[in-house]
């Protein structure tokens, strides 16, 4: 409780904040000659606002302590008498004003801190379409979404997580399209979160994810407001986390990995072509090294004769078996990729040149690997970037398929692919089967599957989580 004595309040605040140096406690006399104390965290406050809008009116204009709310030109001021609440507000960039002989404090919104400009996110570049990206500030991110859906049905639902970090998290959904079952499920999972710290939206992803041991992403990520809004309009729920430019969307189905925002900004036929290309890339990314090794060490009769001959001539000097050769190349590739992400940009160029050109060519010349293997590993390495959201899955499954192909031949590759497909079909995201429009098959939702149909004014069948999801959940109950 707030004490009537300012000095007592001062001591209490000092104690609560462990005498931190950025806590400012400023005592002064107002015009009406009563003692006042302004408490705030220096780094979270707009100084100009503090001087001009709070201190100046109080010192020069305040006639009586009762007129504070009318004299200070700051909207949304509240009166709080609980010390804990005051501390919480101060930590969110607000200033607390204590007046002598009053056992309550006025809270003024004065927050301002350094934040990044809105810029194009590096991960989801588009040629055609909006280029704004989310930033690390939750209120800016909320604004980016609100600006795109001018509709009172758009709801933000705020939570705070992390007993140490007190991170604000907000659910965003359209009240009239969202599937209540999914929303309740999400609320339930959020309620069970009990962690000390949340530094990024990915923490929440891991905490609310279905089948937590699977490496398949069952929660969508995006850094672009137009993508998030698109998902919200389809009935999904977005989760914004303070201090993170990543916005999560649930539920997520498999085909979302193969869709990009640009698919909706270009001609439907071209988008369909691009999606087919992505399906092809996915297959290549996972299976190409495995199939090549299987062909090289088990099924030479399946290679075209001339390719076999050129392979035989290039393999003649290679000391390792095809499997070891592929594993070596793949591990090299992963090392190069990891190092080129971490290197400072000034050195990055050099790293790419040395690793890509010099290593690749000299490895072939030195007879460490065959040229065909370099091409196969290179191609499957590149395709992984087309499907950035499936990165983890591709990298790990590629190794598994490679090992299976190198030890059991094509039989092993086929077994591996079947196991991956079975796994994909078996998992769910917030009650929606992961391979939704295919397994279980739903003809209506196929309009935005691999073939993208024309945008239809009346058709809302693509709202998977709204209609279909609800029906499915009812059935399960």
């Amino acid at each position, binding site marked *: 409780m707030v004490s009537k004595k300012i000095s007592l309040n001062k001591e209490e605040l000092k104690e609560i904040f462990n005498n931190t140096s950025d806590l400012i406690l400023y005592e002064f006399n107002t015009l009406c000659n009563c003692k006042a104390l302004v408490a705030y965290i220096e780094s979270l406050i707009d100084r100009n606002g503090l001087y001009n809008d709070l201190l100046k009116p109080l010192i020069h204009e305040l006639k009586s302590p009762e007129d504070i709310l009318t004299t200070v030109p700051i909207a949304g001021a509240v009166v709080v008498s609980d010390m804990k609440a005051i501390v919480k507000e101060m930590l969110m960039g607000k200033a607390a004003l204590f007046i002598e002989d009053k056992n309550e404090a006025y809270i003024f919104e004065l927050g301002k801190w350094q934040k990044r400009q809105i810029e194009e996110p590096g991960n989801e570049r588009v040629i055609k379409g909006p280029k704004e990206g989310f930033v690390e500030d939750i209120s800016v991110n909320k604004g980016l979404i609100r600006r795109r859906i001018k509709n009172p049905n758009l709801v933000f639902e705020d939570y705070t997580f992390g007993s140490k970090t007190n991170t604000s998290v907000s659910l965003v959904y359209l009240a009239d399209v969202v599937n209540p079952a999914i929303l309740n499920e999400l609320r339930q999972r959020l309620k069970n979160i009990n*962690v*000390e710290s949340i530094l990024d939206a990915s923490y929440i992803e891991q905490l609310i994810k279905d089948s937590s041991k699977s490496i398949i992403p069952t929660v969508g990520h995006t850094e672009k407001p137009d993508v998030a809004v698109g998902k919200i309009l389809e009935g999904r729920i977005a989760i914004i986390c303070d201090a993170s430019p990543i916005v999560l969307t649930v539920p997520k189905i498999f085909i979302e990995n193969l869709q990009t925002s640009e698919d909706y900004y270009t001609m439907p036929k071209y988008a369909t072509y691009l999606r087919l290309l992505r399906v092809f890339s996915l297959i290549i990314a996972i299976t190409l090294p495995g199939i090549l090794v299987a062909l090289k060490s088990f099924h*030479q009769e399946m290679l075209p004769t001339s390719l076999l001959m050129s392979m035989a*001539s290039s393999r003649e000097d*290679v000391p390792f*078996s095809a499997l070891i050769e592929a594993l070596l190349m793949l591990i090299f590739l992963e090392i190069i990729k990891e190092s080129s992400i971490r290197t400072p940009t000034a050195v990055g160029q050099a790293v790419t040149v040395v690793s890509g050109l010099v290593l690749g060519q000299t490895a072939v010349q030195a007879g460490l690997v065959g040229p065909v293997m370099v091409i196969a590993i290179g191609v499957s390495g590149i395709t992984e970037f087309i499907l950035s959201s499936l990165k983890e899955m591709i990298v790990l499954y590629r190794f598994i398929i490679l*090992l299976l192909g190198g030890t*059991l031949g094509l039989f092993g590759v086929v077994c591996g692919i079947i196991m991956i497909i079975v796994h994909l079909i078996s998992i769910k995201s917030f009650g929606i089967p992961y391979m939704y429009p295919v397994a279980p098959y739903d003809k209506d939702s196929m309009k935005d599957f691999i073939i993208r149909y024309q945008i239809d004014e009346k058709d809302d069948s693509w709202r998977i989580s709204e209609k279909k999801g609800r029906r499915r959940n009812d059935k399960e109950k």
Partner: protein
Amino acid sequence: MIAGVYQRKREGGEMIRRSRRIRIIIITLYILIPSFILSACQATEGRREIEDLGIVTAIGVDYIDDNVVVTLEVVNPLSSIGNNQASSNKSQEQKFIYPKGVGKTVKEALTNINLYLDKQVFLSHSNILVIGEEFAKRGTIDLMDFFLRDNDPREDMYIVVAKGCKASDIIGIRAGLGKPTGNYLYDTFNNFSATGKCINISIAENYRYYYDVSNEPVVGVVQLKELTSSDEELKNDDSTVTVLDVSGGAILKNGKLVGYFDGDEMLGFNMIVGDLRSGTISFHTPVTDKDKQNLIIGKDGELTTLDIIRTSTKRKISIKDGKIHLTIDAKLKGALNEINQALNVIDSEVISRIEEACSKKVEELISKTLEKGQKEFKLDSFSIGVAVHQQYPKIWKEIATEWQNIFPEITYDVNVETTIVKIGLINYPANLRRK
């Protein structure tokens, strides 16, 4: 980073369960990893690395002194065709080697090759199986079980009889452009559709004919041919180059070689079985004195060559008084390719004359081949039995076993209808000087 998750999991007996699970995973890996890495031991059936393989491009089988002799053409990968870098460095090296193996059976002979060849014999990429004449006379079916039973050799490998020589004489002659004999022969046989004078039958097809009572196969033929060399370096020595000639067909009876068709007879043969896709026919168009004024505008008596574009053959069987009569209705579409006879081809009457002459020529070809089959070999190689089977299934059941005896007795007539669809780029013969 995710300390909270970790803490939550630690509650209860979670920790003990985790460690037990980890132990199970480690034990599984101990079992699996060696089995993955050491699985290279299953050398023959399972894994074999490309560098261990001797890639065979052609197989030849011969009978010499009651032994099977297998001649292989194996590519030397270091000199190889695909790799430019390697071949430029080591151009002097041998590109192919020709190991021979002797044994009582085909497999035994093949295994004996491995006694001195440092590579594992790998037959899957061989497209050509050359059978020596001697071997073919003894039978193409006996001793050939290996080619169907083993999983390495391809069933669609062309089976070819070496006419008048041994298979080992054929294998090793590379008249193609730096290609191995196998690929050279394979590509030449695929020209079948361009010349119509040869035939390509695979091992599987040969077996299919063998099992079928209604017809006997005609398989491809290859023979050595000497040509005077046009190569500048060799010209002065009056030397010759040896090439492989694939015209003709080998007639098999019960899998044994009984005789040959030559190139022109194969043209007729392919026409009878309805498998002629292309080829050329040369003929002379007879002209009477009366015709000369309007039809002939130049020299008479030379040949005209027609390029076959498309053919279709219908074989009708009719039975009269218990005798089987065959009617062959063939339709032929062609383009005039070379006219030395100086015919006035812009006249439609001339065109119909040429068509008639061509039809007559083709009829002759067909009759000649049929007659040879009936009189000389007394053997239905033309799958006419199939036609009888299709058109008179009930009668066929009675005569099926006797068919090869009945075939020489059947009567036939041949009707060919030629249509000329193109006359080429010029209207008048090139040898015509206009007044």
